[in-house]
């Protein structure tokens, strides 16, 4: 009982803290709502301007560019492909066959749920207004957007396309987390957690990095979402692995992946979809998109190779799961770097990320003692951190990056580190609160008997394979 009360107190305190932060930011945004909305292009930091932004001089009125619009529509579909079925299959193959559908369901339903919330209030809180921590309520229910409205962030594409594109990012980020607590979590708890975490962690961090908030002003470079998406989700996953607890039989019974074939299919769909994620984050069909595209090939390939090389040297065999995991590690690491570093820089970045994440799912995982079932933190957390820090290195013009000549590696890496620490702390606190609320509402875990029987039958009443 005592323990419960202490938990409750901590929970209420944290709720209050998170609430105060969120609404303080919102209030700040409200005060400034008269100021012209000059939202930075998605993923473009002050130092780089990938999108064709009108010059300061009496510029011609922005006009829709059909090439840009076509590319952004395509990119949006590619990010959807990454999530369903890409991520769902990548994770699903790692589960035991009795839990296959539960994993697919969690990804599929989170994608659907967050897409709705994004249109209702997510877009507004992330991209409307200029608060330090959170946007405003001006565009609640997508107010004021018409088919011919051009995006305030990317002037050559329709606002609806920008909203849809960003919505897919919110959905995949939240869906990434399910890999950590899979195979024992209660479905209802997943949904409660997803809503709270999306609202109080994803939206503020997205606003801070892309919506003109704190981290954007600080000069952090995050091209396509290394901090917003991967560190954010990785940390929430790790907290979840601790709070939901280990799977029954963890460390004693064999919890082997039921289909590495599907995991390979999923990883490959992730790779293809990631071109929409990274090259789409250029916000236009231009040279920066081309750079992000080739970097997304090279870093990924490099990480797949370095992961299996590490495996082969360390343990004698190179595995398919290692190649697929390495590819995802490379994709994660190149995400913040894609439009800022040169192709050779991204190869080195990928090589480092592959080895770092291999350590993330082995040595680091043993140290953390958490049952992060599909290594959300080991791959997305570690890969995200490596990517964020190395972006500060390889963005330097001397190393093939796109930044100006006076770029300082040391100060940029420091700025990158600050954004990493802030994101980790914020995400961890919000995740803790969100899991606690879900626990109080429904309980986080299914009973042991149901876990043994498998979530497909007990939670969803169907089997993946007959």
């Amino acid at each position, binding site marked *: 009982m005592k323990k419960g009360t202490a938990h409750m107190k901590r929970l209420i305190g944290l709720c209050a803290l998170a609430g105060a932060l969120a609404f303080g930011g919102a209030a700040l945004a409200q005060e400034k709502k008269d100021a012209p909305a000059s939202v930075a292009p998605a993923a473009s930091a002050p130092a780089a301007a990938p999108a064709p932004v009108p010059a300061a001089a009496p510029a011609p009125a922005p006009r829709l560019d059909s090439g840009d619009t076509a590319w952004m529509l395509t990119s949006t579909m590619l990010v959807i492909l990454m999530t369903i079925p890409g991520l769902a299959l990548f994770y699903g193959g790692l589960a035991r066959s009795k839990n296959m559908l539960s994993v697919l369901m969690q990804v599929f339903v989170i994608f659907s749920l967050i897409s709705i919330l994004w249109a209702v209030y997510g877009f507004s809180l992330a991209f409307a207004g200029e608060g330090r921590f959170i946007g405003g309520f001006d565009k609640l229910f997508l107010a004021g957007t018409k088919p011919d409205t051009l995006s305030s962030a990317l002037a050559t594409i329709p606002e609806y396309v920008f909203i849809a594109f960003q919505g897919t990012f919110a959905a995949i980020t939240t869906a990434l987390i399910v890999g950590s607590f899979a195979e024992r979590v209660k479905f209802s708890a997943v949904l409660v957690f997803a809503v709270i975490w999306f609202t109080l962690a994803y939206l503020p961090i997205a606003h801070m990095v892309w919506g003109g908030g704190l981290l954007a002003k600080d000069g952090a470079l995050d091209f396509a979402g290394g901090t917003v998406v991967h560190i954010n989700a990785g940390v929430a996953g790790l907290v979840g692995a601790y709070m939901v607890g280990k799977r029954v039989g963890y460390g004693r019974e*064999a*919890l*082997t*992946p039921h289909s590495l074939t599907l995991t390979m299919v999923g990883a490959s769909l992730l790779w293809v979809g990631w071109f929409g994620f990274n090259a789409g984050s250029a916000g236009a069909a231009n040279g920066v998109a081309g750079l992000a595209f080739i970097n997304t090939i090279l870093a990924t390939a490099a990480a797949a190779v370095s992961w299996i090389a590490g495996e082969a040297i360390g*343990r004698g*065999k190179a*595995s398919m*799961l*290692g190649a697929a*995991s390495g590819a995802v590690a490379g994709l994660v690491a190149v995400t913040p770097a894609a439009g800022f570093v040169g192709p050779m820089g991204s190869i080195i970045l990928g090589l480092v990320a592959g080895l770092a994440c291999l350590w993330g*799912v*082995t*040595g680091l*995982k*043993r140290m953390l003692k958490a049952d992060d079932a599909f*290594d959300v933190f*080991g791959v997305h957390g570690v890969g995200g951190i490596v990517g964020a820090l190395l972006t500060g290195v390889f963005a330097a013009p001397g190393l093939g990056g796109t930044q100006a000549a006076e770029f300082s590696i040391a100060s940029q890496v420091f700025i990158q580190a600050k954004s990493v620490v802030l994101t980790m702390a914020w995400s961890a606190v919000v995740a803790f609160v969100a899991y606690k609320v879900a626990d109080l509402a429904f309980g986080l875990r299914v009973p042991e008997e149901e876990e043994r029987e498998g979530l497909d039958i007990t939670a969803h009443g169907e089997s993946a394979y007959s």
Partner: protein
Amino acid sequence: MKLVTAIIKPFKLDEVREALSAIGVQGITVTEVKGFGRQKGHTELYRGAEYVVDFLPKVKIEAAVKTELLDQVIEAIEKSANTGKIGDGKIFVFELEHVIRIRTGETGADAL
């Protein structure tokens, strides 16, 4: 009558079936099984997790035969399932009390 049960390596099934047909065995029953013997299992590694797989997949065949055919059956299985490596399997022979063919009601050796 005897019931011969043999545990063999899965990829040897076709050779064993051919050898038994050749000496006039009319039918066998085949089951995919797992087990362990002197052949050690293997380890599987999934990222950081290492699992020892103790039970290896084998095929179990069962053949009901006339007593006078027994020696030939044993020899046929021994020869066709042999690779000379550990894990080739074993043959068990049981006394078979009674046999009935369901369709005709024949019994005993006639039903084999």
